[in-house]
Each structure stands twice: as structure tokens, then as C-alpha cells.
């Protein structure tokens, strides 16, 4: 029995092994394959050929890649900002509700359960220029005289996809922020109150400052998901009009499924992965600093 004794660190390694092996199989191996594919000309018609960095060079010179990268940055920044601006106040209000808080928290989670692709369709009907409910309401209220072509105008379409995307992300961010808010000791608020601090002071210096961790974690998840999302855009605008909502994910989708250029799709996926890691790195830096 004595021989079976192992150190804690060794035991930890042993119990982690199955998970590690699965991770290698399901993440490591596909990633290796993806990296390999990204160095090939792989278009299903011609024989597969190793082309080195040509796919990457092609992408960095490609007008559509540059356009999609710009749209992605606008979309991910917009979606993260809208999610942040709505979820933090929502969490603040929820943390102060005395009655029915559980019910409201449950209700607020509903949009999170809606698949993004469905969210796109829902908002597509709402924004429709001909029979959309938003135009109907605005016309009935006399705010507009003619229907607004939301999905047909470049600057409005990008806002529309940001709204459709944020709508499903706000609940998650709200609950995460709320968890941060409710974990703050009440004694801090009481002490601040005794010292004469008003609600703005306590919100800024206690609630928000002490919840930086959960907020940053929520923003990290929201940012990464928004950066690589295509679902809502696919069902709402398909990247249009005039590629105004054409993000990198859509370009990747087109390379795989429409143009059947798997080598380019692989290179684009790797670029997106690196960009996601960069974004995550910034958040992790601030989280660790916390």
C-alpha cells in the first residue's frame, strides 16, 4: 500500500489526464489540422498543394478581408458597448429590487435562451421596411412619415445587427454583474452611508469598483463571442447591404461553404484566433492587475 502513495501534485496530474487527452483530441488536433490546412491550396477541384504563407499574404492584400476586419471591429466594439451600457444599470436596478426580484431575474434571462440565429430572424421581422412592427409603431405615433429602410441602409444595418446581437448577450452580462454586486458586503454601504456618502458616490466607489472582476469577465466573454459571431448577422442581413455588416466570420463562412476555398478559410480562422487571443490578453492583463 505504501508504494501506492503519490504526491498531491502527481494525483492532480493523473485525474486531469482524461480531460487533458480530450482537450488535445478535440481542440489540439483540429487546431493542428487547421494550421496545416492554412498553408495549403485546398479548393476541392485542384489537387491539394502546400503554398506556405501565400494564403495569409493573399488575405492581407484582399479588399474584402480589410473591409470585413473593419466591420468586425465596429460590430464587436458596438455590441460590447451596448451590452455593457444596458447590463450594468439593469444589474444595479435588480440588486435594489426588494419584491419580485427572482421573477424579474428569471424573465430577464429569456433572451439569453434564444439562439442567435433566431434572434436575427425576430429582429428581421421587427426592422422590416415593408411590414416591420418598428416602422408601424413609429408611423402610427407620427414620429416618421415614411417607413425607414433599416436593413437596406449601411449605417442603420450595422446598428440593427449590433442590437440583435446585444439583445441576447445583455441577460448573461447582467446576471454576471449582478452576482458581483450582491457579493459586496452590506457593511461597506452602511459605513459609507454613516460617512454621508450619497448614492452616486457609493455606486461608483463601492459597487462598480468592487465588481470590476465580474464585469471584466463578462466583458471578456461578450467581446470574444461578438468578435466571432455570425448567427444574428447571417439571419438578419447576410452581411449586406453592400457588405456593411460583413464581418470576418461571414467571410470565413463564405470561404468554406460558398467559395469552397478551404486553405484560405483555414488561414482566416487562424488570423481570427490570434485576434481573439489578443483581445482576451488585454482583458486578462486587467483582470490580473485587479
Amino acid at each position, binding site marked *: 500500500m505504501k508504494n501506492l502513495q503519490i504526491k498531491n501534485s502527481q494525483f492532480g496530474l493523473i485525474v486531469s489526464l482524461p480531460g487533458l487527452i480530450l482537450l488535445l483530441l478535440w481542440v489540439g488536433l483540429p487546431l493542428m489540422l487547421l494550421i496545416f490546412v492554412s498553408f495549403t491550396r485546398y479548393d*476541392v*477541384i485542384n489537387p491539394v498543394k502546400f503554398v506556405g504563407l501565400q494564403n495569409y499574404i493573399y488575405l492581407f492584400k484582399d*479588399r474584402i478581408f480589410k473591409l470585413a476586419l473593419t466591420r468586425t471591429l465596429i460590430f464587436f466594439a458596438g455590441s460590447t458597448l451596448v451590452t455593457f451600457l444596458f447590463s450594468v444599470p439593469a444589474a444595479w436596478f435588480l440588486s435594489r429590487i426588494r419584491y419580485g426580484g427572482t421573477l424579474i431575474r428569471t424573465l430577464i434571462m429569456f433572451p439569453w435562451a434564444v439562439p442567435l440565429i433566431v434572434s436575427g430572424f425576430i429582429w428581421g421581422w421587427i426592422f*422590416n*421596411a*415593408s*411590414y416591420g412592427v418598428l*416602422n408601424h409603431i413609429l408611423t402610427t405615433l407620427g414620429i416618421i*412619415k*415614411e*417607413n425607414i*429602410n433599416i*436593413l*437596406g*441602409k*449601411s449605417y442603420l*444595418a450595422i446598428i440593427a445587427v449590433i442590437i440583435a446581437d446585444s439583445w441576447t448577450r445583455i441577460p448573461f452580462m447582467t446576471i454576471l454583474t449582478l452576482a458581483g454586486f450582491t457579493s459586496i458586503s452590506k457593511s461597506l454601504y452602511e459605513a459609507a452611508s454613516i460617512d454621508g456618502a450619497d448614492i452616486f458616490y457609493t455606486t461608483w466607489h463601492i459597487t462598480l469598483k468592487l465588481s470590476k472582476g465580474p464585469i471584466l469577465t463578462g466583458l471578456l466573454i461578450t467581446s470574444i463571442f461578438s468578435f466571432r459571431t455570425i448567427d444574428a448577422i*447571417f*439571419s438578419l*442581413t*447576410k452581411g*449586406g*447591404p*453592400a*457588405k456593411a455588416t460583413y464581418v470576418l466570420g461571414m467571410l470565413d*463562412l*463564405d470561404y*468554406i*461553404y*460558398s*467559395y*469552397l476555398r478551404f486553405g484560405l478559410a483555414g488561414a482566416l480562422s487562424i488570423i481570427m484566433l490570434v485576434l481573439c487571443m489578443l483581445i482576451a490578453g488585454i482583458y486578462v492583463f486587467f483582470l490580473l492587475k485587479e
Partner: protein
Amino acid sequence: MKKILILSIVLLLSVVTTAVAGGQKEKIEKEGVLGLINWDAPKTALERLTGDEYILPEGWDKTTEGVEKIFYFNSGAMRHDPATAKNIEVFENLTGIKVDYAEVGSDILFQKTINVFVSRDGSVHGMSLTDGPNELKEVIGAGWAEPMPFWTPEVRKAYPAGLVSAMTGADGKVYATVDTMRSYLLFYRPSWLKAADIEKVPTTWQEVREAAKKAGDWARKNLGPDYYGIVFPAKAYNLLHMIQAGVYSQGGRIIQADGIPVYNTEEGKKSWDYWVNLVKDGIAPEAVLGWTWNDYQEVFARGKSAFMLGFTTYVNRSADQELSPALHKDVFGNPDKGAKGLGDWAVVAPPKWNANMPDDYRAAFIDFDAFVVNKFADEKHKAAALLFAEFRMSKQAMANELIIEGNESFYPGAYEDPDVASKILYPEPRAQSARTTVMEAFPPGTVRAMDILIEYFARAVTGELSSQEALNKAQEEIDMIFK
């Protein structure tokens, strides 16, 4: 000793079973579908296909022995495909093989199909390709489709040459058949034309523009802002069908002698300008930039547009009061059965460019969903799927498509059957459209070219670029793909 004996017997039996099974498999693989089915018996393939009732080929039962069902991807919901449902029923009764299907939305059908092919998945035996003219060449080129052996030289001659050519690979074999196909007709609202004081139903694109402008102006003044002269799709590939209609109506073509698509020919420039200016001049709404093939026809079905160049399939849909209630009222909202008792709508063949053009130029593009059999399916299921594919291009199946669903017939002989003709709505303009319709075979890479055109069309419509500048820039990028 006893244990060793039992073990040896089990081992021997396993080896024999494996060898026998392997031999059978090898036999099927060696002889293949062609070897086991005689497509020209009991009658020739052409006779079997073009009779009033389809006849199964000799040997079909032995080849498909043990196949209980086949599975395929249907484009969209089956409730919208009553003719397909009927044809499945007939095929099941004929063969005893159940046809199972997944209803896959047209937006993601090609993606799902590619997934099946790339993963060499043999469990999906057949697939529909929604944008047949373009997607088919990619699938054939990739070697994913099974050649269809019933396409004998005699059969090829009996079906439209342009379509057969679009389904033929570089090796001369035909790899597909038509799932559904539709051409285009000009739809209009008689009561709207009358109210807007438009005396003549337009027969040229120039007349369409004038009439649509007049109808749109009248409606916006008398009915409200969300009424349009004409609607069309500019979000997806069907935009190109509109451009093509303009090109063909002048006698032009997109595909040049070297097989490369060129959109900025003289005819192409005029057609491009035409559709861009319809929006810029307020005759069509800018919302077209967000509309697919389904959206703009839905707008017409809701009674919001005076004209549209719509699928022939929409003849049946428009006649259905439940599906298109607004078309069974006049433009003022009063019940209106129309001259033919089908509602306040009518169709004419696609317009020609101007009055100087011959009537043969009243042509549009023919759009079809192709049906392919998965090369990676096992031989028996492949054979069953091939039988299903063959049945679906028979006169019997095509008559169902024409009568029940309003799709066009891949087999032209179906139109000549008086019984079938008597059951079709608006047979004259449909026959004319079917006769003049143009089928061009687009090379692999066209899907990307279309994306470029759709983007530049939107940039022209929104005023970011001038119409011709947008077209020329689009063509420059398209040239980079093909040259």
C-alpha cells in the same frame, strides 16, 4: 483442449462469414449500379420516362433489395412542396422504398450539403442544390456527385439542351436531374393599373418602367407610402436573374465564348443601369437591398407592389386565396375575383427590352434546384436514390409539378399533353416563357462573382459609386477570379 477447439471453430466461422460478406460487397462494388440495373429494359429509358406512367427499370428490385428507405435534404418545408410530397408518395407506392427527408432552409442548405460531402458521409443519399446553375458545377467538379446512368443519348435529346449541359461534367457524364425548376413571368395587378390610368399591359422593359412609375406614384398619393411600383430581390443571387432578364431581353448573353461571365457588355450595362435606376428614381424601394427571392414575392403577395418579375411557381401561390389574400382584393381592398376568377392579379411573358426587339427576346433566366446522388452512399442506397432521381424527371412526376405546385416541367413533352395543359393556370404565357427562357452554364467561381455584383449593386443604389463605375469595378474583381 476443448476450449482451443471451440475457439478455432468460432475463428473459422468468423473468417468464412467475413469472406462471404466481403465477396458480396466486392461483387456489388465491382459491378456497380450500372451492372445490376438495365436502364433500357423493359422499355428504353426514354420510353419509361416519357409515358403517362413511369416504368421502373429492369433489375431495380434486386439492386435495392434490403433498402427500406432513402434519406435526402429537401429545400425548405415540405408543406410548400405539395408536388414533391405527391411524387414521394407515388415513388413509395411503386417501389416500397420509403423516402425520408430533412427540411433544410434554403439559406443553409448548401452549407449542410457541403458538410455531408466533405465528411464523406454516406447517410444522406440525395441532396437538393437550391442554386442549381451555379452550385452544381462546384459539386460535380469536386467529384462528390454520382453519375446518373439513365441519361442515355436518347434521353438527353428529349430534355432541354441548356439544362442538360449545366448538369454535365467535364467527362461528358450527367450528374444531376432537376428537383424543381421555374422561369419568370411579369406579374401585375389589373385593378391597380386601371386606377393609375395605365391602359396597356407593358410588354417591354421600358414600358414596365413607365407603368411602374405611374402605378407607384398613384399608390403613394392615394394609398400610403409603403406601396411600390415594382419590387425585386437584391440581397442574394436572384438579383442576377433580374440583370440577366435585362440582358437576354436585348438578345445578349453573360457567358462569353471563352466560358467566362462578363456583365459589363453593352447589354449588361443597360440592364444594370435599368435596375439601379429603378431604385434611385424611387420606382422600387431601397428596401430591395434587404430582400431575397422570398421577400419581394411576399411583398407582391401582400398587395404592396403593382409589378414584379416573379417565379412561374407564384402563379399557383397567387391563385391560392389563403396564401395570398391581398391578391384576391382589388387595390382599394374590395373583394375582386379578377377576369379569370383567380383574383386581382395576372401574368404575361417576360418583357423584351424595347419595341424594336423580336418577341423571342421576351426571355428570362431559368432557375432550377438540382438533385444529386451522394457518391459516398453505399451502392444499394445509391441505386434507390438514382431510381428516385429518375422518377422525378419523368413525365408523370413533372405533370404533378406543373399541376399541383406550379413549377415548370423539366420534360418539355408534359406541356403538349392536353390533359396536363388543361389543368395549368395561365398556360400561354408560361409556355412562351418556357420556350424563350435562357439557360447559361456558369463556371465554378460564379458564386463569388455574384457576391461581388450584389455588393457593388448596393453601392450603386446607395449612391456610393455611380452605376457604371460600380459595374466596372465589379467586373474588374470578377475578372481576377476567372483570369
